[in-house]
């Protein structure tokens, strides 16, 4: 059991490292959202799974699962909100493969001068 726990927790930490790496290395905001959801969903999920066998009681274990579910719901909503915000205000260029004509969203938000790249 202990080895399974070590494996799960290590994998969870690995996903957190990967998520942070993605946050730092990806060069547009949409890809960064993709990166951090890996840490939120998989990283914390594996971590919780790894901790579960050490939980002192059933309620404690349920609480751990509840924490994971809450983070899942919260991070999914936050990702949606921020992606919507970025798209609406054209703060970032589109990731590769997306069609630019879908960005307009029916309004004339002007490009943000603080953005180095600008929407193209």
């Amino acid at each position, binding site marked *: 059991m*202990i080895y399974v726990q070590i494996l799960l927790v290590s994998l969870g*930490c690995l996903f957190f490292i990967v998520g942070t790496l993605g946050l730092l290395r990806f060069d547009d905001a949409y890809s960064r959202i993709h990166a951090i959801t890996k840490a939120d969903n998989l990283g914390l999920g594996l*971590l919780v799974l790894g901790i579960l066998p050490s939980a002192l009681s059933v309620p404690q274990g349920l*609480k751990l699962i509840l*924490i994971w579910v809450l983070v899942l719901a919260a991070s999914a909503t936050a990702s949606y909100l921020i992606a919507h*915000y970025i798209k609406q205000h054209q703060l970032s260029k589109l990731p590769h493969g997306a069609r630019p004509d879908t960005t307009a969203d029916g*309004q004339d938000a002007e490009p943000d001068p603080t*953005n180095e790249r600008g929407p193209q």
Partner: protein
Amino acid sequence: MIEAHTAWYLASFVLLLTLIAGLLRIWHGPNPADRMLAAQLFGTTGVGILLTLAQAMQMPALNDVALVLALLATIAMVAFVKRMSPQQGPTKSQPEDQP
């Protein structure tokens, strides 16, 4: 074979290091949305650190702290999206565009 609580400390230490690396994204931006994304990751990593520390320090009360943090993880993001208009340049203010 290292002791169990040392292993938990090790895990939380690794998570703390990723948290500190995430500071770079807050610092470099380039736009406010990127900074808020980094803050969002901070919340989740904080939950992870609290859960591992709860095991390392044998303090089940820390799970409650993690629970509160998980509940309130999005509140700053919601405030940002709902209240912050993205005009950051020298342009004069425009009414907030509501779709």
